[in-house]
């Protein structure tokens, strides 16, 4: 659409700006202030300079939770994206089952995040949960509160359960926008299933898939509630991701300085990813 230049449009944006800025700037300024000081409570602060940043950047603990975070994010992307595409491809295009499928698939997305965690916690309890009991009676030694591997698997499967539908829905919407004529042309040309996928379906899904992958990347990067309720970051620290670690430092130990410094580093990383996302998306849109 051709847009006309109109500086007065700022007035229409002003209320949004005020509300979001209130929520975004004041906390951000507070965090920057804390990150350079030390406090023992009572609103008394001591100047610390860049000590906290240096400490966080060099701490084993931060590196470990960052690594866990990256590993977790890449694992869920590697599972959710292919699975989501496969399910979207095999869903019916028309008929009464479409609505049923869509509603059932969207269901996990609307469950409060702590309920997701609690549900999986119950589901996976080794002696009384459906999953835990079945796995153990099949002869697997499974106990997610004690074995790091089981805890990891459960967290990853939970995220797959929770969010794959997002990728399915987006891909499905992309697929539905392909006119039937394309498929007929492909059939006349005798194109193989793979060729149809590679040259017709994948290009049409590209835009929504970019959005889906980057949304998943960012949401999984700030995941907190579900793993916290499911495993509490344990056993030990094996499922302590960035946000969980951050909350532990800030609210658990009340180390405001290091927590603030960590927040800012975390925020810069998120900002970089956002920018890459936005640039990619706008480029897609321009094409």
């Amino acid at each position, binding site marked *: 659409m051709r847009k*006309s230049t109109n500086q007065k449009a700022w007035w229409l944006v002003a209320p949004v700006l005020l509300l*979001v800025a209130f929520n975004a700037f004041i906390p951000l300024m507070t965090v920057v202030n804390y990150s350079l000081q030390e406090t023992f409570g009572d609103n008394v602060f001591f100047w610390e300079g860049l000590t906290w940043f240096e400490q966080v950047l060099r701490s084993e603990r931060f590196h470990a939770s960052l690594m866990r975070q990256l590993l977790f994010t890449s694992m869920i992307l590697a599972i959710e994206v292919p699975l989501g595409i496969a399910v979207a491809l095999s869903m019916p295009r028309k008929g009464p089952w479409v609505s049923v499928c*869509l509603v059932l698939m969207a269901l996990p997305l609307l469950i409060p995040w702590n*309920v997701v965690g609690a549900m999986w916690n119950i589901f996976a309890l080794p002696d009384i949960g459906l999953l835990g009991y079945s796995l153990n009676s099949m002869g697997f030694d499974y106990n997610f509160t004690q074995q790091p591997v089981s805890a990891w698997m459960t967290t990853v499967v939970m995220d797959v*359960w929770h969010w794959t539908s997002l990728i399915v829905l987006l891909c499905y919407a992309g697929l539905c926008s392909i006119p039937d004529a394309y498929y007929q042309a492909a059939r006349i040309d005798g194109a193989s299933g793979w060729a149809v996928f590679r040259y017709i379906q994948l290009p049409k899904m590209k835009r929504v898939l970019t959005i*889906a992958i980057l949304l998943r990347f960012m949401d999984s990067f700030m995941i907190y509630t579900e793993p916290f309720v499911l495993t509490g970051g344990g056993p030990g620290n094996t499922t302590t991701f960035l946000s969980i670690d951050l909350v532990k430092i800030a609210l658990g130990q009340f180390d405001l300085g290091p927590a603030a410094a960590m927040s800012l580093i975390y925020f810069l990383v998120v900002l970089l990813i*956002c920018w890459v996302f936005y640039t990619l998306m706008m480029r897609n849109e321009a094409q």
Partner: protein
Amino acid sequence: MNRKWILPTLYILFLMLPIYGLLTMSFKTTNEILGGFSFFPQQFTLDNYIKIFTDPTWYNGYINSLIYVVINTVISVSVALPAAYAFSRYRFLGDKHLFFWLLTNRMAPPAVFALPFFQLYSAIELFDTHFAVALAHCLFNIPLAVWILEGFMSGIPKELDETAYLDGYSFWRFFIRIFVPTIAAGIGVAAFFCFMYSWVELLLAKTLTSVDAKPIAATMTRTASTSGYELGLLAAAGSLTIIPGAIVIYFVRNYIAKGFALGRV
């Protein structure tokens, strides 16, 4: 050819299993739950649900959650409407950067903001009110609403605006009388997404409340910590939180993908 239904069916089965586990557990007595696993409830009971509907600390949780979710949805959508119109129709100094800045707020990890939010809302004496949570959730819901609405509005030809202005409509009269009804579907979807994200969020809601506005999600964490003791109650409370979502999903089922794509399918 027609073996295609297998994968979606298996996938949906996988989605339903944990929900089934939760539902059956909510109909069991505590003794039965702790006694061992069973696929169906042996002694079917509604006690857990009765407890939730009669104990104010439980059902108030639902009411609190619904109140702040509704306030938030109303604020977010009504503020986002004119802004989305501006983004979809006009070019102005810094428009793209503003749009990007809104996106970054959608992506900001709530954990980063938890503590400053607590102090901010305590300072303006809104702590433990529904407004505090509703305003805090604006941080990610307003950007979301702007994005979704902008996507829907871009699909409406500019001729509509121009004809109305030629007919002598003022901006606000055109906006409320003609434009808003035209994008009713978009508003519905935006409202649904604001509802959803405010409904599922816990960290900020929990941080900003203590007693009077405590959300159901936070009430539930109380039983979760006394592990195993009131599992049936926890399961029943969890099952009940699924219902509002399940109802609203039905109305937006055909637009839900468009909403997640931020209006850009």
